[in-house]
């Protein structure tokens, strides 16, 4: 096990190094740079600024400079915001996390409950309804449903605020602040849950159907165990086990923010920060964000593999 982990970690580091080079080159090759966006600078001033920011160096040299600093924990300063990339992450990432963790929790909860019940009552009218609902949820263009709900729930009915994370100008603290945030995150959480619940419900439903057909369930029933106990202790546990591997894959999503949702709901998250930086070609921030995501992804994958092993010791780690 420990040699496996050591091997995996080394491999992970190699992949991350390769990824950093690839990402760096891709960003550098993207047409236009931070300076070219400001068309009103004179050609001489542009050259000067490029020299100040080191943008006139060859790509590889720039990469090694960046890497050298990054290895020392210095991801540089954002060009547009002129602040350390890591500080900006700290400012924004927890807002994204909050949104993601709540909607992920709700998504899983709803998906498990509905999935299990639908599987148990396979081919009933409830199951059919659930299936149609699942497909419907999987067929909505995300950006469209966002604005649509803002229009209905915020502008017309005025039930929920149209965007942001707290009431503007509010000095609320403690419980009042908590309430405010809950109120503001309701809409984005609804949308994120709606968009995510479909595929997960389907996943749990089919897992559960597989499990119910297994011999040990039949045995449990034959033993005269109550249907409820069969379903929730034996069947559910086994249906949930494979899902444990999904936890790792959720990791980047938890911290990476949602580009679309944050944009539509004016949520001060890291996804928005990234989007704004991209059009400005704010390289340090873009590199920082993408590497952050890459790191989370490989950690998530590693975690999934380990959890899979924990869940099902028969699976060999290789």
């Amino acid at each position: 096990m420990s040699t496996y982990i050591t091997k995996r970690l080394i491999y992970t580091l190699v992949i991350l190094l390769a990824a950093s080079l690839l990402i760096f080159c891709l960003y550098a090759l993207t047409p236009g740079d931070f300076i070219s966006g400001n068309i009103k600078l004179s050609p001489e001033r542009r050259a000067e600024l490029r020299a100040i920011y080191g943008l006139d160096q060859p790509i590889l040299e720039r990469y090694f400079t960046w890497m050298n600093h990054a290895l020392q924990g210095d991801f540089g300063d954002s060009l547009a915001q002129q602040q350390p990339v890591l500080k900006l992450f700290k400012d924004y990432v927890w807002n994204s996390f909050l949104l993601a963790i709540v909607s992920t929790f709700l998504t899983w909860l709803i998906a498990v409950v509905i999935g299990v019940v639908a599987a148990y009552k396979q081919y009933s009218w409830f199951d059919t309804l659930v299936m149609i609902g699942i497909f419907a949820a999987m067929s909505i263009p995300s950006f469209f449903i966002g604005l649509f709900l803002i229009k209905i729930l915020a502008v017309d009915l005025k039930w929920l605020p149209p965007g942001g994370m707290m009431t503007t100008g509010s000095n609320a603290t403690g419980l009042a602040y908590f309430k405010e945030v809950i109120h503001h995150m309701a809409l984005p959480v609804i949308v994120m849950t709606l968009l995510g619940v479909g595929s997960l419900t389907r996943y749990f439903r089919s897992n559960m159907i597989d499990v119910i057909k297994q011999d040990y369930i039949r045995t449990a029933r034959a033993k005269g165990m109550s249907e409820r106990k069969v379903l929730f202790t034996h069947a559910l546990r086994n249906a949930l086990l494979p899902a444990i591997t999904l936890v790792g894959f959720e990791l980047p999503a938890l911290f990476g923010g949602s580009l679309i949702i944050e944009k539509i709901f004016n949520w001060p998250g890291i996804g928005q920060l990234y989007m704004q930086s991209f059009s400005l070609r704010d390289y340090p921030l873009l590199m920082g964000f993408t590497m952050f995501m890459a790191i989370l992804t490989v950690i998530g994958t590693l975690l999934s593999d380990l959890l899979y092993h924990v869940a099902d010791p028969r699976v060999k780690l290789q």
Partner: protein
Amino acid sequence: MKTLPMKKSTLLLTSLILASALLLSACSDDQDAATTAPAPAVTTPTATDANHNSKDNPTGLYKATDLSKLPDTAKQRKDTIIVGLTDPSGAFVPYFTQSGYDGNVNNQLNASLVSTDDQGVPQPELAEKWEISADNLTYTYHLRKDLKFSDGSPLTAEDVAFTWTILHDKAYNGDTQVEPLHVKGGKAYKEGKAKSVEGIKIIDPQTVSVTLDSPNAIALVQLGGPVLSKAHYGKDYTFGHLDYIKKLYQDVVGTGPYKLEKFIPGQEVRFVANEYFYKGKPKTEHFIYKTSEGDVWQFLETGEVDYAGFSATQENIDKLKGLGFVNILPYTPSTYGYLQLNLEHEALKDKKVRQALTYGLNRQAIYVDAAQGAGSLANIPSSPISWAYTEEGINSYKFDPAKAKQLLDEAGWKAGADGIRVKDGKKLTIHFLGSKNKGTDIFIPIAKENYQDLGIDFQPEVFADFNALVSKVESKDYDLASFSTPQLIDPSDGVVQFVDGEVKGYDNPKFKELYDKALATSNIDERKAIYKEIFQLLNDDLPVIFTSYKKSVTAYNGRIQNLTVSPFSGIALSLPNWELSK
């Protein structure tokens, strides 16, 4: 353009980028509509009194009809006014700000030495008066008495000299360009050959002067920007090192009507009234810029913001009037739209072809009709609100396909077998570049029809991303590209692109001569006459195809009193006077 107050251009650009590249093309035909930002930031907020402006907008204002419809959220605010701003990033030191939105914030935190009125004429602000030497080389600014920074410390000529000096530092990485002004000794300082900038002289604590190597009429306003406190921003300064400024981005000291109270990243910039403001403490205690991406309607309709800009389409105006609780104020931003021509391409070197392209394009349909009235046609490189604007002797290039065809025939482009015009065996093709926004969506189908009708092969290409568009234009692989200028203050701002290499391949000695002549004097009447000549020349020469002026409306909470919008400095001008009625 290459003016000193650069923040405005970045803002325009940034909002353009955001509006076009970054989705929520909500109402992205116009950046005013796509963002809730007030008028683009200028580093020189004007501070004339409200009376002065009300006479300029006596008719435009539409008053709210039913304030009882005001959403509760807005009703509950007693001493706070909220304006949306797309994306302030937290770097609130003037000249060092990279984002135009931070420029908007800076406008509230800092007053300038000199500002401009609604026609772009220089007005006193922190400097109560100034003198220009007879040779037009030396500018002497006289500061008001008892000026104080927001921390209560006095503002003196030292601070002004310090501000001008660090703009010449070699490590200065902001987008303010002082080089074109040629301040005496500026270059030597930048290269480290001099300990100070020779041309900058402190005469007494209240008087400071600057001497240029060559006359430049816009220097007065360009150098008359915000003043950095030397005690606050200069105590750690040594030549070649400006990194320390970053630590002060949110620890700011200014001269504007408001002080920074709190910056909440991605959410709000909170201000509190500055008791040391030279015109007295603003009437409303709190002011907030709310970071607001997304459709601007949702925030105005729910009372989350008190103020929003829209493009002046009939539909927008009707809906705003329907809300009942907003006052509506029309204004024309000081910009013009144009189609940049690749003058290095053989066909476009010919003036007749350029004129034909203008006559043959139904600009009325694109910029006025399809924009539902939120635009008017431009024929010269100046905003209609500028003091230099004229229509005298200006050809309006009314849509005339017959005339366009005739001009193309004269230029030697004859219809080929497939209907496309040919000259010397080459087909007449126009490769158009645009960025993704509603305006481009309208432009392409209409231009395609128009130009096909003339026998021109029109090939449009659309970019999601403004930077990509610019880099494509720089690579010269295009014939026609759609742009809009940033905020223009001085009339020279609108034409500088034809002399400094921005519009490559345009080389008209007559124009260059006039351009220099117009900058060599500070007398407005003289300059007016010269600009008239320039505009007539460019209107005939068409180094670019002039397209349109935008029309916008500002909608704001009917409770706000004394609000005006300056075409040059947006709300910064009147903000200190804003007051919430009961």
